[in-house]
């Protein structure tokens, strides 16, 4: 009962933030006009406003919604799979893997291109490269997790894998054109605004697919809370579950990273916020709560990023640590007890 209330509350908060994202932006537009445009009663006297709302703010809000959900759910799966409260797609270097894949395509193959102006073929290539990069890192981590019993060691191993990927990205920069490096730098700061309306269906498709896979894992994830041996004794196939987890976190992290750049802290912090709200680790409620909290938090970061108004946009990766890092500190303090 308490859980249902919490999830309905989170859902309403997410919807509210979504609508707020449509009404707020760098360009100020009268609210009544926005309502008219959203209801399809667009006024002909301001075609640029209509363009901003339909081609800009709607895709941006949907992107934030899905990217936040994907990263948060990915973080939850990783924390359960590795039984480590400090696991997350960026801590374990999974988004660095996706980053490296994207860098290879943009800097080497594509030249000076951003995801925004890629041809459809090039765009598909970026997504596939991100997915392969993320899956490669996940495979390395799964292999290492069998050798390393200590949870902290696995985190350090993940960070090392991330560092190697970052070094390779920097090395690639030497080979790239100035425009390529500039595009990569911008992309690396994180943004929900680089998905155009015609590309949006691809992002929606991939993220929804990844989230759907995650929901299929609810029962095995609950059993995994008890550790591999108890889970196996309850009839859960550890190998199949791990393979599906690998695929799901890979798809979710790669989708978000390819479209929005590597976004830190959402994957790590959101599952803890959701656990705090629910007081339960049962994935049947924790997974939807994490998904909604991730969406809400990403939308909130997106709103904050437009606060400077006409003078520009704050990169998302400037905002997420301010919200995420205190949550992580709180988790560490609680672990010490």
């Amino acid at each position, binding site marked *: 009962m308490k859980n249902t209330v919490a999830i309905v509350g989170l859902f309403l908060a997410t919807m509210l933030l979504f609508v707020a994202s449509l009404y707020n932006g760098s360009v100020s537009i009268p609210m009544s006009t926005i309502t008219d445009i959203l209801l399809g009663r667009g006024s002909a006297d301001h075609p640029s406003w209509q363009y901003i709302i339909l081609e800009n703010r709607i895709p941006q809000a949907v992107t934030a919604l899905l990217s936040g959900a994907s990263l948060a759910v990915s973080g939850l799966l990783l924390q359960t799979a590795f039984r480590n409260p400090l696991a997350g797609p960026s801590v374990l270097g999974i988004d660095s893997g996706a980053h490296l894949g994207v860098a290879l395509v943009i800097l080497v193959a594509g030249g000076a291109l951003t995801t925004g102006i890629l041809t459809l073929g090039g765009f598909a290539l970026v997504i596939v490269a991100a997915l392969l990069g993320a899956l490669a890192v996940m495979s390395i981590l799964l292999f290492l997790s069998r050798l390393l019993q200590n949870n902290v060691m696995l985190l350090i191993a993940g960070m090392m894998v991330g560092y190697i990927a970052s070094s390779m990205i920097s090395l690639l920069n030497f080979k790239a054109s100035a425009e390529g490096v500039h595009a990569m730098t911008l992309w690396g700061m994180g943004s929900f605004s680089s998905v155009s309306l015609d590309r949006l269906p691809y992002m929606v498709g991939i993220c929804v697919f990844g989230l759907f896979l995650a929901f299929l894992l609810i029962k095995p994830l609950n059993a995994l*809370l008890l550790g591999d041996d108890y889970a196996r004794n309850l009839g859960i196939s550890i190998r199949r579950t791990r393979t599906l987890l690998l695929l799901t976190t890979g798809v979710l992290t790669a989708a978000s990273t390819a479209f929005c750049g590597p976004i830190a802290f959402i994957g790590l912090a959101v599952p803890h916020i959701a*656990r705090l709200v629910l007081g339960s680790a049962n994935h*049947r409620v924790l997974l939807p709560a994490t998904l909604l909290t991730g969406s809400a938090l990403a939308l909130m970061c997106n709103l904050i990023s437009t606060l400077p108004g006409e003078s520009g946009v704050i990169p998302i990766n400037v905002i997420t640590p301010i919200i995420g890092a205190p949550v992580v500190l709180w988790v560490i303090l609680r672990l010490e007890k």
Partner: protein
Amino acid sequence: MTFELNNLVIGYPTRKVAGPMTVSLHQGELCCLLGSNGAGKSTLLRTLAAFQPPLSGQILLDGRDISDISARELSTLIGIVLTERVRVAGITVRDMVAMGRSPYTNFWGRLTQEDHRLVDEAMQLVGVDGFASRQVSTLSDGERQKVMIAKALAQGTPIILLDEPTAFLDFPSKVEAMLLLSRLAHDLQKTIFLSTHDLDLALQTADRLWLMPSSMSKGEIAVGTPRELAEKLPLYFPSPHLTFDPSALRFQIQ
């Protein structure tokens, strides 16, 4: 349900740990596995739970080799309780016991009325129903181990294997846990098999003992009631500081 080990040899691809052994477990009995460190108690339990394959020989459940039984079906036949503490926040006692129903629940893990009834029953049998809504992370070691036993009961398996379930418990909790397991074996006609280092306790509560020789010696596994094994016991726990009193079934420190 009969549970037989037929010429079973256990170990790892590179190293044999113990065997061959041909022994049986009996329904409605509490059976304790004793042996010094490194004798292979954990390896034997892991092999019986089908976590690792035997090097040779068979484990037969009602005449069927367990390697031919699917993981799904096996989860309804053998339940386990492990030594290591389950460290997880945000799980209540009821949630934990309900995990035992996983082999029977649907794809999403939804509990039916019958599942809820069996979870309640398991909690009552073990005596943890008084704190069903407490978080497992706030329990004492003794309480937590009882919850894990309740989970195994909710799993409804005829066989329950426990790997050193009393290892971290204080003395009264050890006694309570052993008496509980003995009662469950007798009252519910379960086959309960556990490894332990608590020799005195095992001698007083077990219906049957398995004595594993240390890996150094070439000895065979010895099986029998505590009284039947009274003569052999000192051989399996050789120490210049211990004498065994067969009439009282007790080791004395010299």
